Structures are given as structure tokens and as C-alpha cells.
């Protein structure tokens, strides 16, 4: 074996005669989902995450309370959804969700995604995860899945909190869709969950961008801020008619298409188009994050 030490296997190296090493090479067991479980546990038990989700839940609650307190025959101008709240509590979650789409949700996702790698780097735990060894690709995937879990949780919290507070403060009833058709309470709850899923998908492209930015720096706050700025910039660009050619390429292009889930029949193509767009962002920024992270010098 000393003839070709490089090509020799781990086993022969560790059983070389005249040495005292006692540890055998351990092959990996399974997929190592424990790291994902631990990532999710850390993410969702973290005070910061809980605070962000609580802040999101506060949005529909504040809307509902404000409308309840001020609604003495109000038919004020404003989003049509807000008007419907008073007639039907089921709209609180939906109204809260739509209100959170442009800023609050991207903000929290920016924090979660920007923190992924840069947060570990700033704690110094990145080097210990990597020498464990977590494997750079595996760690990147786990981090991305963690952000996806956050993208699922965040809109869901808004919808659930809104629905609960709506049920408490307002009457419940059948829901009028945009098309003028009326659906039952149970179907409308299903639609609300579908909208939540739509928004989750909407945020995944931004997560991928945040993940990539997070691999660029050891300063999580910088990565978070950059991700949030990008989400705002995309929406500004999306509102400029001069850049109309660019709009379909923006990850925020279909964000407000979430209301297409309130048409009869459901405009599934909207869901599909959004998913494909987000998938494109995941592929592009996932590849960038991969290339950056596997070549990154861990000096933190």
C-alpha cells in the first residue's frame, strides 16, 4: 500500500501496520437529515424568527382591530378587501396577506435568507460545521430548505392569525370571489391556504437571491439589507413603464397574482407561471451560490 498511498482506500490507510489508530473510517449514514432537522429547530426556536412571525401575525390583527374600532358604517375608499372585512371575517387573513406582500414578507424573508451562510460565518460556527464535516453542498441545501420553510411559515402565520382574529371580531359567511361567485366557508379557507402557498412560492426566488448574497459576506446584516433592498428595487422597477420589457423577468412580477386564486375558476396558470419564474431564480442563484460557496475561503 505504500506503493500508491494516494489511490489507496481509507481502510488500508487506517490499518497500516505499526500504528495505533483505533478509529475506522465511518461511511456516511443515510441522507443526514438530522442537520436539516437541527436547522429547522434552530431557525424556528430563535427569538428573532419568533419575533418576525409575531410581527407578521400582528398585521392582520391590527387591521381587524382598526377596522372594528373605526367601522361605524364605513364604506371608505381603500382596497376593496378592507371593505369586505366587516361583512366577513374570513377576509381578514387574505387582506393581511395582500398587505404584507410588498414589504413585510420580503423583509422577513430577506432577514432569514441573508442570515443563512453569513450568520454562521459571523458566529464562527461555519468553520465547525464544515470540519464536522457538513459538506458544503449539503449545508447550502439545508440552509436553502430552511429558508423555504420560513417562506412557507411566514404567509401561513399571516393567514391563520387573520382568519382567527376575523372569526373573533366579525361575522363569518360565504365568501364572494372576484368573479362575483360565492363559495362556502370551507372552500374559502382552502382558497386562503392556497393563497398562502402562492405567496410562499413567490418568495422562493428572493430566498435564493438572499442565499447567494449570504455566501458573499461574513456580515449577516449586510446580506439581509442587500436582499431587502433588492426586493424593493425589483418592485420599483416593476412599476416603471419605461422598463416594461424587464418586468416579466422580475421575481416580483407575479407577486400580486395571488388574487388570481380568488377568481372562479382558479387561474391556475398564474400559479404555474409564478412557480416557473421562481424556479428560474432558484436555478440561477442556486448555481451562483453553489459556485461561490464551494470555492469560498472560510476565514471567519
Amino acid at each position, binding site marked *: 500500500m505504500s506503493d500508491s498511498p494516494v489511490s489507496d482506500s481509507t481502510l488500508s490507510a487506517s490499518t497500516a501496520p505499526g500504528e495505533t489508530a483505533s478509529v475506522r473510517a465511518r461511511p456516511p449514514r443515510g441522507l443526514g437529515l438530522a442537520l436539516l432537522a437541527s436547522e429547522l429547530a434552530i431557525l424556528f426556536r430563535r427569538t428573532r424568527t419568533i419575533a418576525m412571525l409575531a410581527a407578521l401575525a400582528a398585521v392582520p390583527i391590527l387591521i381587524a382591530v382598526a377596522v372594528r374600532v373605526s367601522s361605524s358604517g364605513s364604506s371608505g375608499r381603500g*382596497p*376593496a378587501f378592507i*371593505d369586505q372585512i366587516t*361583512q366577513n371575517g374570513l377576509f381578514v387573513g387574505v387582506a393581511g396577506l*395582500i398587505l404584507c406582500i410588498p414589504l413585510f414578507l420580503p423583509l422577513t424573508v430577506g432577514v432569514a435568507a441573508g442570515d443563512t451562510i453569513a450568520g454562521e460565518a459571523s458566529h464562527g460556527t461555519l468553520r465547525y460545521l464544515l470540519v464536522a464535516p457538513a459538506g458544503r453542498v449539503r449545508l447550502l441545501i439545508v440552509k436553502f430548505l430552511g429558508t423555504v420553510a420560513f417562506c412557507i411559515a411566514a404567509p401561513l402565520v399571516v393567514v391563520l392569525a387573520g382568519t382567527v382574529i376575523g372569526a373573533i371580531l366579525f361575522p363569518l*359567511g*360565504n365568501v*364572494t370571489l*372576484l*368573479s*362575483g*361567485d*360565492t363559495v362556502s366557508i370551507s372552500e374559502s379557507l382552502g382558497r386562503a391556504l392556497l393563497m398562502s402557498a402562492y405567496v410562499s412560492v413567490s418568495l422562493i426566488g428572493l430566498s435564493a437571491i438572499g442565499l447567494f448574497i449570504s455566501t458573499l459576506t461574513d456580515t449577516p446584516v449586510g446580506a439581509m439589507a442587500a436582499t431587502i433592498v433588492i426586493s424593493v428595487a425589483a418592485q420599483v422597477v416593476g412599476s416603471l*413603464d419605461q422598463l416594461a420589457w424587464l418586468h416579466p*423577468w422580475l421575481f416580483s412580477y407575479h407577486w*400580486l397574482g395571488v*388574487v*388570481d386564486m380568488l*377568481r*372562479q*375558476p382558479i*387561474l391556475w*396558470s398564474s400559479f404555474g407561471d409564478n412557480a416557473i419564474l421562481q424556479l*428560474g431564480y432558484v*436555478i*440561477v442563484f*442556486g*448555481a*451562483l451560490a*453553489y*459556485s*461561490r460557496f*464551494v*470555492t469560498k475561503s472560510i476565514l471567519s
Partner: protein
Amino acid sequence: MADRSLRRWLPAIVAPIVVIGGALAVPLTAGAAGVPPEKSAQEVLELVGSNEVTALSGTVVQTSELGLPDLSGALSGTGTGGDSASSALELLTGSHTARVYLDEAQGARVQILDSMAERDIIAGPDGVWFYDSSEDTATHLALPDDPTGSAGTDGSQSDATDTVPTPAALAEHFLDAIEPSTAVSVDNTSVVAGRSAYDLVLTPDSADTLIAAVTIAVDSETGLPLSVAVTAKGQSAAAFSVAFSDISFDTPDASLFSFTPPAGATVDEQLPHAYSLSTSANGEHDSHLGDLAKNVTVTGDAWASIVELPVGDLAAGASEESADPSGSASSLLDAATEKVDGGRVLSTSLLNVLLTDDGRILAGSVPVALLQAAAAD
């Protein structure tokens, strides 16, 4: 080492190229549905006439690149979101998507998909409903007899099949009617909504018109027109187009054609004769047009026709519509038009409108100079 890290950067270079390339390439290759047999213009027109589509559901996209000045600011300033003038103008700018459901036996439904809102026209067994989600208003037009006739709201070609005996005769008739002023040809085939179609191209012979061509994509299997595009001279992209972006010939769910106004909506019951689909996407927009017609004179012929009417009538109509204490209508007019010799002109790539200083309106798909000449006559 350097080699290795170079290889690791490969995905970062390849992925954007593949994704962007794929996104650009997919529409080009979508529905490589086989090239249909060649057909003459006459045969394609016969195909249109023989179209027996009785049920469909699809999405229609209408785009306008008329080169109109952006009036969105001025329009919203007038605060008349629901009235017919701004609806019509709104439809002439930008892009609109509508879902269309048709079942000759049941009815028809058109949904104009606005952002965060929707306008629905439902023609079904219980009459015609118009629903506007942004206002939460429902308007009902009861149809005392022949409920299925309402299906014609959408499918004008199915009306044609009712009244014209044979497709061949229709085609011949149509060709005879337009042949003197128009070259009709089948240029090539295209793919619309994933279906292969013949491009029937109507090219005006007149040198005076702004219209370069009207292209109608006719589904090679059913004969249903899938898109209509109007191209202005000197432009390659269509100035105005209506096209299916997807279509299916399955019978839509019957529940789509029955409508019960939602609780809490403002419901307006109208009698058939008093009702006009003034805010609908298609059909005649304006009830004023009927009155105006008496004073209208038409000069020129075919594609280069110029319509002339005294401005008094329109001014009355306009002030009635957009009751403007603040004079916003005139500012809107100023924003939209520019000064030329003899008046002001509203110029688009397909249509020019001249408002003469002496109070007449001349309109036509002709250059401004021709309008000025006609005004001088």
C-alpha cells in the same frame, strides 16, 4: 487547483444562460404542432365559415401599442373609473387579459382579469349579468325569450354560420366585397395558443391608409379565428392585437354560466331595450354613436375613409360623460393632442383624429395631412 475552482464556477455561468435561453426559446418552440396542408385564401375563408366550434374556454390577450400618450394619470385624475369613455380609452392602452368561456347550449362568460379586480359578463339561461368586483356592482339584463341566443355575445362567427348558407358562399361573398381595395393572401402558418393556424393577411391597396395589414390567424383544424392583429405602416410589431393565449374546446362547467349576485352587492335590474353593454370589452361602446351617426359624413374609400362630424355633438357627449367642474376633460384633451395647422390632432399609429379650430372632428386611418386636406375641402 485553479482548474478545479474554474470548473466549480461553471454552474454559475451555465445556469443563467440555460435558464434565460430556455425562457426565450420556449415560446418559439411551443406547440410545434406540425405544419398543416397549404391552403389558398379562399379555402381558409371557407374553413372559417365552416367552423363549428360550439364550446370553448380560453384566455384572450389584447395588446395595444397605438403610441397613445400615457393618459393614466389624467384619467385617474378625473375619478370616473367606471364610465364608458375611460373604459374605452383604458382598453386602448396597454395589455388586457380575459378569460372566455363559451357553450352554445348554456351561454357565455367573459372575465376581464384586472389586477386585484375582475369584470365579468355572464350570458346564461337567466339573462345577462355584468359584475364589477372593484365596485361590487351587478347589473342584470333579463332576456325574456331565446336565452341561448345570448351566446352570440362572444362568438360572432357562430352568428355568421346561422345566417350564411354555406361557408364557401360566405368566403366568396367576403372576398368579392373586399377584393377591390384589399389583397387577401395566406402568408404562412403560425402557432397561436399552441395550435397551428393559417395567417390570413388582408393588405390594403391604398397608399393613403396608416394600416399596413390585418392578420387573422385561423385555426387549421376548426377554422376558428385565434388572433387578429393590426399592423401600422412602418412598424413591425402589431399596433393592436387580440389573440388567444390558450384555448381548449372542452365544454366548460355549466355552473360558470349561472350567476347569483353576491350578498351585499349593488344590483341594478335593467330592461333589455334600455341596456347597452357600454362597459363591455367588445361590441359597440357608445350609445351616443347612434345619434351622432346622423351628422356624420364619410369621404374617401375603404381603408382610407375619413369620418367627419361636427364637434358640437361630441363636446356635448363628453361633458355629459365626465362632468368636469375642474376642466379636467380639456386638460386631458390638451395632454393627448398636439397643435397642427388648422387645429389639434390626436395621433396614434393606426388612427388620426383632427379637431379643427372651426369645430369639426375628422378621423381616419390616414396621415394627418390627408385629414387637413379633407378639412380644407
